[in-house]
């Protein structure tokens, strides 16, 4: 009996180890790219904070493609993208049915299927960062288009209104909720903590019907160590989530010799096929 228990424990440990090796890309992304090393010294801006400038490579898949002469054998990009496992949020029991229903109708309900913006945190980790002492801009060349976020880091609060454009008009214009919201950053030691608010409810947190409300708040943490950047997001939406959802962190590597490119035009060509489409991996 003791022996049986031992075997079960060993089997469970083996299963966890196997599963982790399949699903966790944390650190693996870093290992795959030769340029990234947490051991390298971390450059800093004149104000002493880590310098987050750069083009940060966040995908594992294409790095494993092979070139044979003039030929290329591409890695299974979807298999490796699926291996990026952000985890799963825990909804309040009364919303479980809605998540399931949306998941079932993902093709029709998910805006990313018609080239819509993915929103935060679904857009994933930063791709290109421009960083000054006052603010930080994140650029994304996403599958669905070009997106950007401008994030003050000098104590400016979240903007809720903007000045009027019409001469004589004094009323400020309220800023509408948007897919990538309104962000403000502050430093906690060497980690930049970004709080995102004013997010519109028409995006999802991820695949499989992960809806949210306009009360969504996302906290992102960016930590540079040498030539690696770790991104970790936490999602708070107490109206629908049973508890804050802490996404599994992603580790990116600096690509000093590369640069972000303008995303290709996104056009949904699968419309006529949609009735047959049940699911599509949208991990970014």
């Amino acid at each position, binding site marked *: 009996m003791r022996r049986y228990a031992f075997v079960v424990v060993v089997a469970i440990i083996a299963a966890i180890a196997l599963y982790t090796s399949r699903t966790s890309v944390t650190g693996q992304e870093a290992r795959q790219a030769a340029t990234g090393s947490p051991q390298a010294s971390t450059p800093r801006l004149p104000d002493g904070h880590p310098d987050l400038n750069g083009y940060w490579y966040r995908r594992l898949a294409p790095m494993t493609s092979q070139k044979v002469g003039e030929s290329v054998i591409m890695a299974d990009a979807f298999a490796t993208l699926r291996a990026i496992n952000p985890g799963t949020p825990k909804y309040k029991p009364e919303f479980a049915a809605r998540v399931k229903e949306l998941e079932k109708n993902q093709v029709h309900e998910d805006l990313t299927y018609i080239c819509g913006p993915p929103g935060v945190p679904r857009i994933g980790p930063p791709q290109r960062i421009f960083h000054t002492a006052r603010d930080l801009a994140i650029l994304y060349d996403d*599958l669905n288009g070009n997106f950007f976020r401008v994030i003050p880091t000098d104590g400016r609060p979240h903007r809720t209104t903007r000045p009027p454009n019409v001469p004589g008009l004094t009323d400020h214009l309220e800023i509408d909720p948007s897919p990538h919201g309104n962000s403000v950053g502050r430093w906690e030691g060497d980690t930049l903590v970004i709080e995102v608010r004013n997010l519109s409810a028409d995006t999802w947190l991820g695949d499989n019907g992960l809806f949210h409300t306009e009360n969504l708040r996302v906290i992102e943490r960016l930590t540079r160590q040498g030539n690696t950047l770790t991104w970790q997001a936490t999602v708070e939406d107490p109206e629908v989530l049973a508890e804050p959802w802490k996404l599994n962190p992603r580790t990116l590597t600096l690509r000093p010799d590369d640069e972000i490119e303008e995303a290709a035009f996104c056009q949904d060509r699968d419309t006529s096929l949609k009735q047959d489409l049940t699911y599509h991996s949208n991990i970014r």
Partner: protein
Amino acid sequence: MKVRNRVSALLAVLFILAVASAQAHHSFNDIFDVGTVTTLKGTISKIDWINPHVYINLDVKDSSGKVTTWGVESPPTNHLRSAGISRQDLLNNASAGEVVTVHVNPAKATAKADRPLGLLMRITYADGHFFHVRGDPKEIAAAK
């Protein structure tokens, strides 16, 4: 008995892993017949360098000389670019009428496609160099 216990415990673990793996599905199987490899020979009339899928427009001539344009669904632009394949690399000598061999999984009869449609596995150029983007190379070797 002990051996059987050990085997059943391991089988249970393997079963759990298999289920977890099967759940990671995506759309290809819904639209395309991934069990069938179709070999097309034709000329590239146009490449739609768009997301979420690049499309190769392949003009295929049948024995009577009738030309049918196939839509060949290909990976997104950033996947191709990251693998070192540009739009020009895909076109190669298309402007000179180069005949290319394209292996695809054809769309299922149930897919309501408005033209013959295939999911790209491999494109091979006149000089023999190729871009293999998906699937088992053995299936391509076995295809006619």
